[in-house]
């Protein structure tokens, strides 16, 4: 197969079309892998994240736009202004389908425009256009305006940044057709470059190497997904989306509550997926599925009464629900749904925003900050109005409070000081998501060594550790240490391989990540990867992003693969994990050994050579 990417230079105003060399395509496949390849090679070492030299990659995988189930997930990657290292994020929905229908596998964006600009793609026509009139508009308004402007025989799809990214907040995401992608401030890099949006219209068919075999393999996967009680028809995702796990996570003592002070929320029933299903989601009938998806995890919340009446928005998913809910001590569903709506509207990362606001609430309650610092807002846990006010100010980067929210938790802790760094819940500067690692040690290891900072999906061990997705035996139990490092390493490579394909990770709850997805990849690409080669694609991508950190951050190494003080030193006060802290070091040792990294966490030369990453060696040695 041959794939074309666009290379956009905003400084020159130029656009080039380039074919991905076949050997590179096979080696890095797509999405995360290909984004890592291009960005490692095209971003000059040690340039600031906010600079014309930094680049953003938007990349598809080979299954996007095909008949494969949930084949919609595309990647947005860059050097992060929040962490200073690698970041990549993923969104589903319909945007990437249209990009492939226009004939493109990805876009690399460099340079910096003189004035607000948007990229218009209609099949072979690709142009930069003036966005001065939409600069400042919120994400939903931007999408509406650009759809109206470019609607013709088909509806265009729109990817945009929000006001938060325009103002260079550090905790932003892009919004693509109402779905968010990217943690680590990826949208703000586009904001710095003054690229407001990308509008796409495509009329072409996505070609694959062997359509019959792909349909055959997709049918097998679909049938498995349909029968599965989580992913299937009337399954837990169709009823409650990812939020179906709230009660299970709380029962395991792992539901972040009041800035991770405990893992048990006394109002968990009120914010459970079951509760959302039975009220705002109308029994699960308000599904908003992605194309070709069986899981159908996204729901439309309609707030019909109370002070937020009239708000209609997708979500909240598990992560946003918890980080904007229990982590801020808020138990009112309408408030949580409104909070999530605001993060989408302003283009804020809901996980980072909920984490940072939870941190600020703890600072406020401990007297480390006062109303003087919050512009008069009574920033206490459980104060619903304060949560909303903090999001509005953070999303518009307004006043002292807005600036504190927008800078993310690490910088906010540095500004506030007074020991608050001990409970600033981040790894490498990226805010921790919605699993308490003291209650699931594998998640602690995932957070500590993930290639973008504290990430809930690199890999996601929580289901196996605490939610019954693996048998009750070593190393899957939540407090197991022995064997956990090697297991997490294997799982990480498989997850990364799935990220390279373009299917949603959530289908792996109903199909095997290798046995069922690989036949679809081979039918689409014609590359005939063996299982080992396929997993190596993921391992290669993960080593390349790891090398990116070593190249970009002079003192990078084991000292960065750590957890907040609270997770390592402060025992959980309640729940099944009462008294636990994370024993990180032995797990990290095992991980490094399994990964072929040295004691400082650096990929060895031998490992880089084994993965065909020879071009990396002289950049980090």
């Amino acid at each position, binding site marked *: 197969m041959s794939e074309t990417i666009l290379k956009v230079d905003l400084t020159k105003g130029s656009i080039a079309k380039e074919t991905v060399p076949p050997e590179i395509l096979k080696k890095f496949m797509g999405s995360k892998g290909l984004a890592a390849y291009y960005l490692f090679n095209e971003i000059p070492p040690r340039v600031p994240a906010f600079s014309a030299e930094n680049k953003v990659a938007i990349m598809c995988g080979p299954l996007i736009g095909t008949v494969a189930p949930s084949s919609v997930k595309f990647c947005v990657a860059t050097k992060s202004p929040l962490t200073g290292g690698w970041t990549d994020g993923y969104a589903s929905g319909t945007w990437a389908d249209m990009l492939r229908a226009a004939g493109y596998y990805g876009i690399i964006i460099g340079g910096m425009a003189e004035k607000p600009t948007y990229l218009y793609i209609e099949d072979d026509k690709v142009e930069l256009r003036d966005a001065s009139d939409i600069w400042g508009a919120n994400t939903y308004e931007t999408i509406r305006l650009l759809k109206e402007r470019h609607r013709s025989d088909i509806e265009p799809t729109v990817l945009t940044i929000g006001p938060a990214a325009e103002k260079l907040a550090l905790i932003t995401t892009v919004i693509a057709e109402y779905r968010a992608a990217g943690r680590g401030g990826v949208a703000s890099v586009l904001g710095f470059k003054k690229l407001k949006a990308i509008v796409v219209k495509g009329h072409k068919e996505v070609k694959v190497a062997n359509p019959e075999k792909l349909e055959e393999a997709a049918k097998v996967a679909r049938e498995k997904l349909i029968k599965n009680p989580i992913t299937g028809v009337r399954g837990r995702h169709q009823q409650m989306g990812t939020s*179906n796990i709230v009660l*299970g996570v709380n029962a395991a003592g792992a539901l972040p509550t009041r800035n991770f002070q405990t893992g048990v929320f006394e109002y968990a029933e009120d914010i459970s997926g079951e509760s959302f299903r039975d009220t705002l989601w109308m029994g699960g009938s308000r599904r908003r599925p992605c194309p070709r998806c069986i899981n159908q995890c996204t729901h439309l919340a309609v707030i019909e009464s109370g002070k937020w009446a009239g708000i209609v928005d997708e979500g909240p998913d598990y992560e946003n629900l918890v980080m904007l809910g229990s982590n801020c001590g808020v138990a009112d569903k309408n408030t949580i749904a409104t909070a999530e709506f605001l993060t989408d509207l302003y283009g804020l990362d809901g996980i980072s925003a909920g984490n940072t606001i939870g941190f600020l609430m703890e600072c406020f309650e401990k007297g480390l900050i006062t109303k003087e610092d919050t512009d008069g807002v009574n920033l206490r846990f459980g104060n619903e109005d304060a949560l909303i006010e903090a999001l509005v100010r953070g999303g518009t980067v307004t006043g002292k409070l807005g600036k504190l929210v927008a800078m993310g938790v690490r910088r906010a802790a540095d500004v506030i000081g007074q020991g608050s760094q001990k409970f600033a819940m981040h790894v490498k500067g990226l805010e921790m998501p919605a699993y308490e690692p003291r209650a699931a040690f594998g998640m602690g290891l995932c957070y500590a060594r993930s290639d973008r900072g504290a990430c809930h999906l690199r890999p996601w061990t929580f289901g196996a550790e605490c939610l*019954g997705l693996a048998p009750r035996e070593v190393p899957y139990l939540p407090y197991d240490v022995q064997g956990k490092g090697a297991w997490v390493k294997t799982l990480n490579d498989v997850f990364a391989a799935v990220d390279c394909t373009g299917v949603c990770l*959530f289908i792996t709850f109903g199909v095997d990540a290798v046995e069922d997805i690989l036949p679809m990849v081979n039918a689409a690409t014609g590359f005939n990867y063996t299982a080992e080669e396929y997993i190596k694609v993921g391992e290669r991508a993960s080593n390349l992003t790891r090398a990116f950190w070593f190249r970009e951050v002079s003192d990078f190494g084991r000292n960065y693969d750590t957890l907040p003080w609270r997770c390592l030193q402060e025992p959980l006060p309640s729940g099944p994990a009462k008294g636990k802290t994370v024993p990180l070091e032995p797990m990290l040792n095992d991980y490094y050994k399994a990964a072929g990294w040295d004691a400082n966490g650096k990929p060895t030369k031998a490992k880089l050579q084994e993965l065909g990453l020879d071009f990396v060696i002289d950049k980090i040695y």
Partner: protein
Amino acid sequence: METVVERKEVVVKFMGVLRDTAGPEMVVTIKDNSRISDVLQDVQKRLEPLMDKNLLSKILRYSRLVLNGVYAPDEAEVKPGDVLMIISPAAGG
């Protein structure tokens, strides 16, 4: 004076896929020296008419077990009034 007879029962609470079949909770009668494994057997018998037997068996083998707020092994003894939480498969992200 009223005679108080201690009821030999434990409350079983369900999270995850079993909650969809069994509801939020059920009461299981136990004998002296009963263990979690005995309670699981009882649960299995009662749920078998409602779902595939093999699937149910696998789910119960995989579920995490929290007895009175603490993880417990299958062989842990249960006493009247205990609360056993069965965290059965669920997946999010």
